[in-house]
């Protein structure tokens, strides 16, 4: 989350918005403080604020790569925090094996996500508004359906 905040601050500085960059730095510092003091929900709020600042950054035409990197770092921080606070925190016989697998998968997912993002930035496909709306709606609906499928009861 610290890296995300720092990256965002760089992006906002590049957009000539020092007060917002300062806000991003304060956000990173508060996250560190919350982490050490054990404030509840600090990572959730941190992720939300990073996303909000990223949206501001987009509106200010900031560099996309930095935004993408900031969002990926914030997501990684949120996932790792959730993982550390979840059942894995309690007694685990093979803790390192499971943790390592989780970390590898997370880095893979975020790496692929960033690579795809950059690729789609470089590749330009012209779409009419209706096409964009249709594809966007399909994506939103697909996401909604799959989120239902993720939590399911066993078949047997």
């Amino acid at each position: 989350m610290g890296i995300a905040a720092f990256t965002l601050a760089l992006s906002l500085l590049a957009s000539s918005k020092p007060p917002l960059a300062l806000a991003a730095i304060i956000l990173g510092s508060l996250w560190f403080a919350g982490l050490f003091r054990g404030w509840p929900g600090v990572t959730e709020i941190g992720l939300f604020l990073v996303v909000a600042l990223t949206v501001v950054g987009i509106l200010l035409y900031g560099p996309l790569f930095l935004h993408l990197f900031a969002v990926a770092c914030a997501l990684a921080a949120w996932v790792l925090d959730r993982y550390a606070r979840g059942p894995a925190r309690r007694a685990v016989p093979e803790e390192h094996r499971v943790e390592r697998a989780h970390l590898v998968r997370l880095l893979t997912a975020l790496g692929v996500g960033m690579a795809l993002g950059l690729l789609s930035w470089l590749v330009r496909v012209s779409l009419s508004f209706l096409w964009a709306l249709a594809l966007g709606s399909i994506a939103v609906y697909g996401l909604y359906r799959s989120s239902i499928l993720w939590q399911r009861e066993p078949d047997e």
Partner: protein
Amino acid sequence: MIRPTPVAAYAFVFLLLGLALLRRESPILSFPFLTYLALGYLRAPRRVQLRGTRTLDAHQSTEGDTLQVTLSVVNAGPALEGLHVRESIPVPLQRRSGSSEAWVRLASGEDVQLRYTLRVSRGFHRWGPVRLIATDALGISAIRLSLGRLSEIVVFPEVQRLKAIRIRPRATRMYSGMVPTRRGGPGVEFFDVGAILPGDPLHRVNWRASSRHLDLLFMNEFEQERVADIGIVVDARNRSNAVSQELTMLNASVRAAASLASAFLQDGNRVAMLVYGGHLDWTYPGYGKTQQQRILTALARCRAGESEYFDQLDQIPSRLFPPHSQIVLVSPLLKEDVGPLVRLRARGYPLLVITPDPVSLEASVFGRTTDDLLAVRIARTERSLLIRSLRRAGIRCTEWDVTQPLVPSIQPGLSRPGHGFGPSGSGYEHAQPRCLSCGGHRCLHVGALPPCI
């Protein structure tokens, strides 16, 4: 487990913003979220086949003992990247060591074992099925399932060994035992001197008495000792059972009842038990170890309860007990219990009351302010008056400070001869004034009422 909903929500936000602002940077920012969800979904467990067994190292135990539980889960299906195993321990049991929860990866055919040790407390305890969550390595998609059968353990109350308990009921049974019957015959305690009859053994002749009469010989008679019918009544009413941290009055009463029943049965008596609370739990009279097991089982399931009908001790069904048989009541006692107990005594049942002291229990968690000490003094005075009024009615009362061990506390009161037919033998002689500050008979507290000796 990572809930996919927030991740999907952020992806939604970026997609919708892209549509709303017509800016392609926004949907691109949703890619990390989308790939995270997609990878989780692609690697989700499709088929889960698990077998589980739970082994308890005993199915019967005594309160305070430790119990080892082993849980084994075998993966009979394809490999699982993440498996969360969680065992729900029955609430009153406390885990001493080991773990009842694990988060593991299981290859096909591999197994995971959880071992933990519990400190058991009285009661019937049931383990439900094991809760399992099979997930992908990212923890996004989950399959929840339950595994295993129910397991059960019965934890009996602790039985402490009481030595002789002196009781003298009017009615006894025909078999030899340890209860004096007030009738001459074979025995060990001197009872009377009577005229010798043909066939009586000469070694029983009382020569001193016979020498005073020229034409008569007298012989010593001994008191017959028989077994008796004893009914133990455990007061399980909610309002008479105070609770203080881990120690409850009911647990104390149950422990005392178990020890008393065991002592009476060891002496060969016929013992019955009645748990009087939200309902009546009656254990039929019986002898020996089987009866002891029945009583301990009834005490293991004994719970405090509330009932309008059984609110007063008046509803003790005295007809369950043979006439003039000994009744032992284990109760913390309430003010309004005096009347019913006196009436029960008046019907000819000798009563022995073992009363765990709720005042000392509650005083142990009170503060030491002046108000607290005054409240404790008032409560002790009330309780002292209550016990005196019972003793005046010919009811033997033995108090037990539950913060002290059972046997040393009540054994002296139980071993003293108590006929139970009047103040002289009713244990009234033990009703010395007690210091209202510390509860002791002899202390140096100044200003205690009544004055300390």
